[in-house]
């Protein structure tokens, strides 16, 4: 988004994944909402600079919980999360946003009674130094490049907008703070197929602009197609990890975990 960010290199095949300093990493996470019930059991996750990583799995596998645990929305009972090499376990969301992590929740991801512009202000809340002027110019421009539709909707209140447009506002809200990485919780949920395709295209362009992306998706196949790597979760555990293509090609994984009709589509 901003010029000081380099255009990241996709994880190169020549370098073993383990030797690069990961951007976001989680070890042996145990977490849950209700006391005594762990949704995540020793879950691990790693994201390298510039990657798009997908997290897929059946409903209730703990995909969203993993995302929320890394973002400080769920109490972590065991394990650790680190970002850019420093420990961020248990930090609250607003601290993480300041460090450069963005997050787009699945539902209720826009401020409905606020205008698009006000939503953007809220997204850039942590950038205290950034005055309205800057938002009006640089960042607004960058957002308009990604989501041209928001230009005409700028002064409109979000509750008057359609689902696809709201999803754009939600993503733009997370991006306007200029994060290193955004965590997207089911960005395509509830959208029409055309809008879904547009969302995935948007994610790719966001990534090209230098932001690493983590996506949790039900729509596994569409998601994995744009991912460098993917994790398959079940019952709060990692059951498979590999490049997007390798997950898609794995017959057994496809049948057992990807679960949807698309599990049978061969590309």
């Amino acid at each position, binding site marked *: 988004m901003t010029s000081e960010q380099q255009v990241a290199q996709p994880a190169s095949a020549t370098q073993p994944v383990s030797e690069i300093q990961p951007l976001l990493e989680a070890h042996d996470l145990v977490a849950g909402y209700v006391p005594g019930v762990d949704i995540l059991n020793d879950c691990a996750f790693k994201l390298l600079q510039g990657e798009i990583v997908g997290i897929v799995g059946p409903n209730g596998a703990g995909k969203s919980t993993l995302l929320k645990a890394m*973002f400080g*929305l769920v109490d972590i009972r065991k394990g650790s999360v680190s970002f850019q090499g420093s420990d961020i376990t248990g930090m*609250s*969301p*607003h601290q993480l*946003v*300041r460090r450069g992590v963005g*997050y787009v*929740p699945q*539902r*209720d*991801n*826009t*401020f*409905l*009674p*606020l205008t698009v512009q*006000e939503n953007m*202000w*809220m*997204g850039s*809340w*942590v950038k205290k130094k950034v005055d309205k002027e800057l938002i009006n110019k640089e960042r607004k421009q960058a957002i308009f490049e990604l989501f041209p539709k928001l230009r005409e909707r700028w002064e409109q*209140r979000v*509750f008057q907008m359609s*689902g696809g447009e709201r999803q754009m506002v939600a993503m733009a*809200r*997370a991006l306007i*703070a200029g994060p290193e990485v955004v965590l997207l919780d089911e960005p395509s949920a*509830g959208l029409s197929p055309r809008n879904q395709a547009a969302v995935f295209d948007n994610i790719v362009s966001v990534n090209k602009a230098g932001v690493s992306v983590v996506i949790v998706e039900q729509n596994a196949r569409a998601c994995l197609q744009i991912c460098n790597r993917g994790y398959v979760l079940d019952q709060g555990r990692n059951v498979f990890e590999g490049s997007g293509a390798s997950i898609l090609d794995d017959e057994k994984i496809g049948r057992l975990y990807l679960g949807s009709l698309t599990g049978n589509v061969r590309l």
Partner: protein
Amino acid sequence: MSLAKFPHFKRFIWSIYLIILGAVFIGAMGFPVSGASGQETSESIKGRLEIEDTEAQGPRKVFTPISGVRVTVSQDGREIGTATSDGSGEWSVGIPSRGTYQVRLHTDTLPTGITLTDAEKSELPNVLVDEGQSKTVRFNFGPGTRDTVSRLERISNLVLSGLRFGAIIAMCSVGLSLIYGVTGLVNFAHGELVTLGALVAYYLHTSAAGPQMSLLLAIVPTLIICGLFGASMEMGIWRPLRKRHTSLIALSLVSIGLGFVLRYIFAIVFGVEFRSYSDYSVQDPVDFGWVSIAPKNMLILIVSVMLLAAFGLFLMLTRTGVGIRAVASNRELASVSGINVEKVIMGVWILGTASTALGGIFLGISERLDWRMGLRLLLLMFAAIVLGGLGTAFGAMLGGFLIGLIVEVSTYWIDNEFKVVVGLAVLVLMLFVRPKGLLGYRERAA
């Protein structure tokens, strides 16, 4: 015991303790503990006897007081009390309780040359006094050029009075609505915050033990004290309870209990009688043709409107203001956007209690002070925020003015004693017709 699950237990207990101690301390220092607290009835009937000086020059009317006139108050033939008008023409008779009384002016005690405008009106047969009211009755003397009040005049006066009352309700309920918006708390102790503001100002201004600063000067420290009080309540009580995921209904019960605690502390330290600020307690209305209004009330109306407008602009235009609206609309999302929600909630508590306290001071100036003044306003504040839309600041402002207007103007047709009933009826009606309120937005189902 559930102590183990309540990490902020100590802080909680300490803050309750400190709140009580602080209030008792201020009270003990500030209010001379008088035997007056036993004197629970404060209803009275009073008046000022004066005659227009028709020969006076200039645009304003000049009145001459009439002294030494005897007035008798009786009820059902029983004499309650008698008073004689003093040098400024004023008289006052204390009465035992609310009810209907007869007031008779002894025409034989009138100075020579002065007669009643309408000789038949030496006795007023139906003077209705409300609970705690100090009723003013008027006798007209002299030839009487304009003793009949036209309908238009009456209604325009009621509208103005309604706007004044509405401004006070709006000032007080913005805080209630915003606190509901950002935390979901239905705060039944909000009325006590109104009282607190009025009483702290009383301490600083009127009380013999206080610094006795002028009322206008006292407003600033009052708002600071009340804002800090709101902050300490948030820190000590509401935040720990929220952290513990206490249900909203339990929170509202806590607020009810807290309301009791505060209210009875007020009763102990302030006493149960009605009092007034020493400044601005009596002011003659200024006549503007159709309407007449006391300057203090005019000022309250203007200042409130200006402050509310400024607050509205703050909410619309500044980053913090938009942040407050953002937290009110979606707390979770605000937090993941990087907004320090706890900080915003704290800000709302401070702003909310301060503006409520100011509303309390205004109420005290324009009416009177007592330990239950906020409680009496509480349900009207709820009516205002439900009418405007729960959780929105603009709804509370709009609702406040509307409720004030409705309540006051209704007395044109309906008896005075049903004022509050009318306001509450509007609340109930609104809940049935449009629960989301006038300015509430509907969330489109996904």
